[in-house]
């Protein structure tokens, strides 16, 4: 079963986080990524650019609407996504707790309803 870890946190301003802290986090994420890979549970992971870079697309109102900015401006924003493939929620929660982002952000662990694998929906 696939679970997505949706990382939410308040976006820092440019230069707010000291370089050594960024470097330390980069090392921690490196080790975490290798651990997920070795355990054979990693489907993919992306840390997102800030929401000022975000574009919203919807056809909810009939025609296609493309808007600049995030879906809803909130203090906490979606910052990254991990997708893991594990047997159940307890295993997913175990991995989410080990994610370095859990130290500064809230991770929403949500079951994946359906996935597109090699162009086909499961």
């Amino acid at each position, binding site marked *: *079963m696939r679970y997505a870890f949706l990382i939410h946190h308040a976006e820092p301003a440019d230069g707010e986080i000291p370089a050594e802290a960024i470097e330390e986090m980069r090392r921690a994420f490196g080790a975490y990524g290798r651990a997920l890979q070795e355990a054979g549970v990693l489907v993919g992971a992306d840390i997102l650019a800030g929401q000022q870079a975000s574009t919203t697309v919807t056809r909810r109102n009939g025609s296609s609407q493309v808007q600049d900015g995030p879906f809803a401006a909130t203090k906490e924003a979606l910052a990254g996504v991990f997708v893991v493939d594990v*047997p*159940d*929620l307890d*295993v997913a929660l175990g991995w989410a707790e080990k994610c370095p982002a859990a130290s500064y952000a809230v991770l929403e662990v949500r*079951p994946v309803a359906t996935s597109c694998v090699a162009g086909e929906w499961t």
Partner: protein
Amino acid sequence: MTDAVRRAAEAAARTSYGRLLALLAARCGDVALAEDALADAFERALRTWPVGGVPADPDAWLSTVARNRVRDVVTGAAARRTVALDPQHHDPGLLDRIEPGTLEDRRLELMFVCAHPAVDPAARTPLMLNTLLGCTAEQIAGAFAVPKSTMAARLTRAKKRIRQARIPFRVPDRAELPARIDAVLEAVYGAFAIDWHTTGREPRESLAGEALYLAEVLTEVLPDDPEAHGLAALIELCTARAPARRDAEGRYVPLEQQDRAVWDAELIARGHEHLRRAHLFATLGRYQLEAAIQAAEGADADPAVLLDIHRALHRLAPTLGSATSLAAAVARVDGPAAGLAVLDLEVGEQAFQPAWATRAHLCAALGRNEEAHAAYTRAIDLSHGAAERGFLAEARDALRR
């Protein structure tokens, strides 16, 4: 047979239901589907057994039929056509004929699922009552004093979440076990505390028998957990006194005025036995201490000894309840003024009925009638039960005489 014992006996008759449901749900990971399949199996039994006779191994029969039903639904082999099991209409004797001993027991796993951190805390106790005992949403709603539709929605949401998020039916690893057991104990305690700490319900809506049964099941599946025994002891010792808590006119009777002849001796003996088992492990816990207080009060222990236990409990697990009991225990040893000082410090103005009732008694004992009157009024406003309201109103009126 006392009311509590009768309820416990009824609850025990539901053992088969809980065991069968736990087994099915653990296999398919879907509580709602397991319930439907089990109801379907019972319905089929009611149709076929009177004609073809009761099978030699009824539980195996039910389990097999229900399992096939789960498989049919999962593979889409059959259209859904099930009705919920309704003890009012379906033969309750059916459950008595089932010998659940031959089935694998997965009730502990089901309890861990019900009290999983991913399940809304407000749904955990109702979910246990619903799945392990087969209590209906309506019965549970009555005990929790919420509308039936609210409780039904809460249960449905929780079951959907268990299936969608795939909460596993497993006993947690050693590392996470203590915290997870605490959540299970908390949920069982919840069934008992509805009665005890909110002071709320009329007897007909009481879940005391159900809480008793859940606690007993927990000691069966977790025989080496001292707090499980402590919790069972606590519930047994409190429930044993239930018949004495009201007089013939239905009025509330405080502990020191209760007629001890109507305490349930068998339940008390069982409570003491659980407490002894708990002590063998030589690790202290909140439920053991609460049970020890009940045992000591019932045996007219030295107030100084009781005060020590109350102090230990309040240190270990401070709650409004433990603070209020501590204040009362201090008052018995060091006088009402000392008790009031504890209430001022630990509870203050918070809306907690037992604290206001205790404050009222202590103020009255000190002759501070105006404060006592105000505290009685506050306690009466916070009481849910007519018996308790009546008892407090009488005490308040006595201030004028």
